[in-house]
């Protein structure tokens, strides 16, 4: 599991920051909705952080593919296992980014449902 995150390269750090802000914003929006102090800005910002995570992930993948192609060309080693290993490493940031975006969308839908079905 840790190996999956370790291979993401330098882009993982801003993604971790986006993930932390996403989780904090979900908690704040949920608490505000429960107390009847919901704000559409606070709910929408959940989607913003999720979208940022996805964009960072795609950026990481594009940079990763570029670096992998350069490394493979420099080493003159284009065996399929090396290529697919590079694809796997490059895809890891996209996967993490899409996980953040999916979490953000699910949280947004849940917050919308909470707004439409207040307690009491």
């Amino acid at each position, binding site marked *: 599991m840790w190996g999956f995150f370790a291979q993401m390269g330098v882009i993982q750090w801003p993604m971790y920051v986006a993930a932390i802000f996403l989780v904090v914003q979900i908690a704040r929006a949920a608490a505000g909705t429960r107390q009847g102090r919901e704000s559409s800005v606070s709910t929408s910002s959940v989607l913003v952080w999720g979208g940022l995570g996805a964009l960072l992930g795609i950026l990481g993948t594009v940079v990763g593919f570029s670096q992998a192609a350069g490394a493979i060309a420099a080493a003159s080693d284009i065996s399929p296992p090396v290529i697919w290993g590079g694809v796997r490493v490059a895809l890891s940031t996209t996967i993490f980014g899409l996980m953040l975006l999916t979490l953000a969308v699910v949280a947004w839908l849940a917050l*919308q449902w909470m707004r439409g079905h207040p307690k009491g």
Partner: protein
Amino acid sequence: MPTRDELLRELRRRVQLPAAEHAALLREVRGDLEGMVALLELQGHARAEARARALAALAPSEEALAALAQVHRPLYRRLTAGVAQGRLRLAEVSAVVAMAVLAALAPVVPLVQGGRLPPLPAGTLSVCAGLLLANMGWYAFRGFVRRDADVEDLERGGRTQAGLVGLALSAGSLALAVHVWQVAGAWQRGPGSSGPEALRLVAEASTATAFMLGVAILGVFGALALLQGIMVARDIERELGELVESLNPREGRR
């Protein structure tokens, strides 16, 4: 002096009708009111007095309102009047969900069995398509059959629809990326892929992407239909508010 919204709420409480039927009823009452006011003015009454007399004469009793509401009640509500609300609601939700699940699985099962769509993206997109169809089906049922969806309900449905389109795109992309990642891992550890195997992966990814975009486009069409419903409902609510204000007994004394 009661506001337009307070009058509207009071009228809604007394006469349980869909907004369109409500507006038609009030248009009729206003036509009768204007006719009677014109007649009383011709007889020499001042405008304010003529209006007050006409309103007093035309104001329906609670029994008359109940009878009117019964006559104009939507067919579905008349047919299900004797059914317990809890059981009826459960049956309605179950029917919508069942239809959505069947509609979502119908195109997916043959694609997965034919090996053209990998199971992980297929399962994820089926769930998203089912949720989208269930949302669209529920609000279409409430708008056209049960006739009890107001502007706020439809706006909530529209927001949910937009969110579910986003979910289909993000979860579908995630499932596809994970599938490619898993296959790449197997080829990295094993003897590596052959040309046909790599092409098969490209074909699977293309089919999954096309299916995901199809689900998203279906969702967008549903959102557009809900948007149309919202615009129509807003127009009717606005007319209803104007009609209620024009029938406000205190307006003649301004």
